[in-house]
Structures are given as structure tokens and as C-alpha cells.
């Protein structure tokens, strides 16, 4: 499928010819797409396809080799407050001396501002966010004493506390229990019904149809993107996961050595 990105300034996330490289080896190549507003969007692709890198590049967490990203027509720097982020659970040190509430309050730091202390309404907002993921009882539990699923819900609550318009989530469903999966899905649907845009790096092909409206099939390049019904086809999946890209990755390896 050929992607015709109109690059409208009203798109929550508009990506223009984005290329990202680690040690000169491209991991994302000429990604060009507009993400639709108010939808649940899955980014799907094999390991090393650049799924996490795509959302990190959108948020300026990794340097771009070329291309640009617009959040509602402006640079990310100007629109930070519109964006909430759920990193991969393994990316942080769960032995850090902090309780669940403390982690969720971090979602409010942007609103609090530099060098100011946490206000009462931030703690309140954090408690409400914990309530939305069913973790009120664990607010004062040290985070290392939470199960993996509970930790993931704390991360989700933190993003909710950010109270943003666009949500990026990096594998929120990775190795969570059934109760957590249910809680996350409920939160995702709530977000959609209040008009938010949610972009989720997703690894479970079985649940894409059930959970998401849109899908971005990614393997270094965008293989296809659009409504799940149209795009999430066997043919496209084969293209995404199949061997057709070996030539491309070979070229990428050579670029790295140059």
C-alpha cells in the first residue's frame, strides 16, 4: 500500500521523512505518516523493526538523522505538555526508594515547573489516576513490592496524571496478568471516548483487531498503515514479518560499516 500523507496541521502527530540511525546504522528509514486523531493506534512489527525508536524519535528522546515531526502542526518542544509517555517497564530501576504514588506524581512535574514543590492538587490528580487503574490500595506501597502487572498499571496511571492529548505507550501489555490487561484496555477505551489519541507499541498480533482502530505495520519502513480492517491483512503481515526486507537490512549493515 502506498502511503499518501497529506501532512495536515491538524494531525496530532505528523511525521515527515523521518530517518533514525544508531552508530550510523539506520533503524528507521524515511518514515512518513500522519497519525489520525482520537483513535487507538497500534505500532506492530518484528523485533528490531524500530517500533520503540519511532515513538522515541517523535518525543526527541533519540536524535533524528533527518526528517521532522510535528505535533498539531508545531514542534514537539512547543507541545510537550500535550504528550504523555509510558516507557517500557524494564527501562527503570524498580528498587528506587519511592512508592507508587510518588511515581504517579512524576507525571505532574511538567505542570508544576522547575524547582517548585508538589502541590496538593497534584497529589490528588495522582490519586485519581491510581484509582482509574484500580491501584488505590497500593498507593503507598514501595514499587519493588508490586507485581509486574501492578508496576505497569502504575506507569499507566502516571501517564493519565499527565492529563495530555496524545499518549505514547511502549509495550504496555508486555508480560502482564489478565487483570492488568483488562484494566489497560479499559483505560485505552476511556481515553478514546474522551477524544485522546493513543499510540501503542504492540507485540501481540492476536489482539490487534480487538483492541485497536488503526495499525502501523513497521519494519524499518512503514509497510502499511490505516484502519485495522483494511490494513491488518495476511498479505501485509507477511510483508512486515517476511523475508523481503533482508536486502534492506543488509544494506543498512553496510551503511554502518562505511
Amino acid at each position: 500500500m502506498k502511503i499518501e500523507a497529506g501532512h495536515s496541521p491538524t494531525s496530532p502527530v505528523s511525521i515527515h521523512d523521518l530517518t533514525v540511525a544508531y552508530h550510523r546504522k539506520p533503524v528507521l528509514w524515511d518514515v512518513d505518516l500522519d497519525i489520525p486523531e482520537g483513535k487507538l493506534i497500534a505500532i506492530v512489527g518484528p523485533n528490531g523493526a524500530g517500533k520503540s525508536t519511532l515513538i522515541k524519535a517523535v518525543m526527541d528522546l533519540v536524535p533524528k538523522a533527518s526528517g521532522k515531526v510535528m505535533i498539531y502542526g508545531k514542534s514537539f518542544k512547543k507541545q510537550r505538555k500535550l504528550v504523555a509517555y509510558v516507557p517500557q517497564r524494564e527501562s527503570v530501576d524498580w528498587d528506587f526508594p519511592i512508592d507508587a504514588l510518588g511515581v504517579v506524581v512524576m507525571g505532574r512535574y511538567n505542570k508544576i515547573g522547575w524547582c517548585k514543590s508538589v502541590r496538593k492538587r497534584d497529589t490528588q490528580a495522582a490519586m485519581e489516576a491510581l484509582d482509574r487503574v484500580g491501584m488505590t490500595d497500593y498507593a503507598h506501597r514501595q514499587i519493588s513490592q508490586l507485581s509486574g502487572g501492578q508496576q505497569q498499571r502504575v506507569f499507566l496511571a502516571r501517564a493519565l496524571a499527565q492529563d495530555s492529548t496524545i499518549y505514547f505507550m511502549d509495550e504496555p501489555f508486555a508480560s502482564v496478568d489478565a487483570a492488568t490487561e483488562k484494566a489497560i484496555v479499559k483505560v485505552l477505551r476511556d481515553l478514546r471516548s474522551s477524544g485522546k489519541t493513543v499510540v501503542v507499541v504492540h507485540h501481540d498480533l492476536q489482539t490487534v483487531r480487538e483492541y485497536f482502530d488503526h495499525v502501523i505495520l513497521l519494519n524499518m519502513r512503514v509497510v502499511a498503515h490505516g484502519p485495522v480492517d483494511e490494513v491488518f491483512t495476511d498479505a501485509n503481515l507477511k510483508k512486515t514479518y517476511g523475508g523481503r526486507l533482508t536486502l534492506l537490512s543488509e544494506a543498512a549493515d553496510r551503511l554502518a560499516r562505511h
Partner: protein
Amino acid sequence: MMWSEIDTWIIVIGALCAAGCAIPGTILVLRRMSLMGDAISHTVLPGIAIAFLVTGSRDPMAMLIGAVVVGLLTAFLVQAIQSLGKVEVGASMGIVFTVLFAFGLVLMRQAVDHVDIDPDCVLYGSIELAWFDQDPDGLGIPRGAIVNGVMLLANLIVMLLFYKEFKITSFDPALAKSQGIHPSFMHYLLMTMTAATAVAAFETVGSILVVAMFIVPPATAYLLTNRYGMMFILAIGLSILAAALGHVSAITVPTWFGFSGTSTAGAMAVATGFLFICAWVASPSQGVLAKLWHRASMRLRVIREDILGVLWRLEERGQQQLDALQLSEAIGATRWMVLVALRGLQKKDSIAREDAHWSLTERGRIRATKLVRAHRLWEIYLDKHFPQDSHQLHQSAERLEHVTTPSMYSSLGDAKEDPHGSRVPGDE
């Protein structure tokens, strides 16, 4: 022991110095980059030496600037070598700080000829002599106390000002960055604090021992609390305690063995280690004693529950009740443990003794019924989901019955008979 004003001042200076180090030290420990403190405390040496050589004096401002510049250079080089040289951070640190430290030593030799400075003093500090180093109009306050006191105050202000910024960039740099709180800015701010603190402290405890002040009290605090703010408070408290303990033991302990006093700075560093060991042994949450106690009380609970189970089954079969020795054989625990467990059960009015034989009371029977019920329901569950031979079933259920929570208990369901054909007692 002869105590004088000098001793008091030594402790004050040591405490101010150690408390000042504890603040950046806590953040370093939380960021899992403790050795960066070591690296920077070594590399301030060339900074100080260059400042000596350039200004020809011991001007504290020049020394501070020199040390901070080289300290930041260290932090930068460590990162650069790590990413360019493709080596792990430890190797990169080793390359940078040994080379810069050696360079500092070379420069220091040069400086000795020009400036009144003693390299030994730079390495090990001279806290014993600190009291004599006073400004004429210093109101009797030694310079070391002023320098370390100002540094402590500065660190406190920076820490309180950037309290939540240090927290978020330490815990989740990616989230911090996405919110516009730049982790690299906080990193270099921390490195500046560390370098400045190291140069303030080097006259007191020397550039080698200062690393003990950076790392050990915060690491000790980490064992004692799981709250971010409390970690700072404990680290500061512990470092002050270590300073006092260090000096007192430096002038007393060696005399017990007929020696004269030893190095106070050294003793302070040893005291931090001593406090760490105390915390490691006795920490209420993670200490060795707490873990042993926890394990022992778990074991006792299991034995108590096993006793109840054995007595219940004897009742079921209408067999004779057992005495303590027979019970210990029946459940495979030492007689001593069984006696302690029996005592606990008796206190809770779960069992009663007739002659030497033990039997269940009404109360004990209710608890025992629940346990046996859980055991037999587990056997049913296991048999259904993971078919195995009946001996294995019993073994697994034996372990599971002790960890059954009320919610597990209710989801185990109901049945009349277990796989061995025994009755599942009712849930009364």
C-alpha cells in the same frame, strides 16, 4: 582520654565534611553511578595542582574552579570514551580517572617546589591540624569548618531546589526528557556538586578517603529506608555519626592496645564501614537478622500448621494422640522447633495436653479443618490440571496449604472427596 576544644572542632569539621558529601553521594548511589564519585574525587587533584601552579597560592576560589573544570571534564570524558571506545562504563572510568589522577600527582610534585603544599596531606587530609588553620578575624572558627560548612549549605540548597528534578531524572530519564527536564543537565549539575564537594573535603579527609564519605553513608541509608527523602536525612545523620565515632575511636581504640592515636580521617572512613555493617546486619527490612527472623517465623508457622493437620488426621482415623517426640517424627522437624510450636499453639488455645499427649481444642479443630480442606482441595486442583502420581500430589499440596490466601481459598471451589478418596471436610 584527654578531650579538648581541638577534638570538638575535629568532629565538627569531619561532620560538616561528611554531611556535605552525603548529599551528592545519595544521588550518585541512587543513579547507580557511585564510582563516578570516586573518579571525580581523584581527578580534582590535577585541577587543584593546576590552580596552584597558575596562581602560585592556595586561593580557595581558584582551587574550586580548577577542580570543578577538571571534574566536569572527567564526567564528559567518561561518557565520550564509553560511547566512542565501545567499552563499558567501568573501563572508561578507569581510563579517565587513573590517567588524570596520575597527571595530578606529577603536577603536584612540580607544585611542591613552588607552593607550600604537602602531597601526603592532599591524599590523606589533615583534619588533626585543621583547628590551627584559622583566619585572624575568624572568631576562633577554623577555616576547614567554614569551607565545609559553606559547601554543606550550598549542597543542601541545590538539593532542595532541584529535589524533584533529581528524583525524576534518576528514576526515569526518558520521562524526564520528554517533559523537558534534561537528564544531561541534571547529570552535569550533579557532577559539579560532586567536584566542588570533593575539593572542599580534600583538605579534611584527603582525596582518597572522600569517596568513603560520598558512598558509604548513602549506601547504608539505602539499606534502612525505601523513601527518597528519608534517604537524604539518614545519609546525613549517618555521616555525622560516623565522623564523631571515627574521631573518638581514633584517639581511644589504639590506646587500649598500647599504641598512640591513629589517623582520624582514616578512622572516620572505617566508621562509615562499621555503620554499614551494622545496617546490613540489623536493617529492619533488608538486614540479615530480619531475614533470618522472617525465615524462622515462617518455618515455625509451617510446623504449627503441620501439627494441627497431623492431630486432625489422627482424630479423623480415630487413632491415639501423639506426644511431642512422636509429633516431631511425624512432621520431620527437630524436637526443639516442635516444642516451640506447641507452646505457641497452646497459647492460642488451639491444642490441649492430656498427660504427655496433645489433642485439638474446639478452636484448633476449626483451624485444622480449614487447613486440611485446603490441602485436599489443592490435591483435587493439581490432579485436575497437572496429573501426577498420588505421592507427588500430597507433597505439593503439603507446601501449598501453607500459602493459601483467602481469595485462593475461595477460588479452590468445593468437592466431597480428594483423589485419594479421603473426605474433604466442610468449610465451617
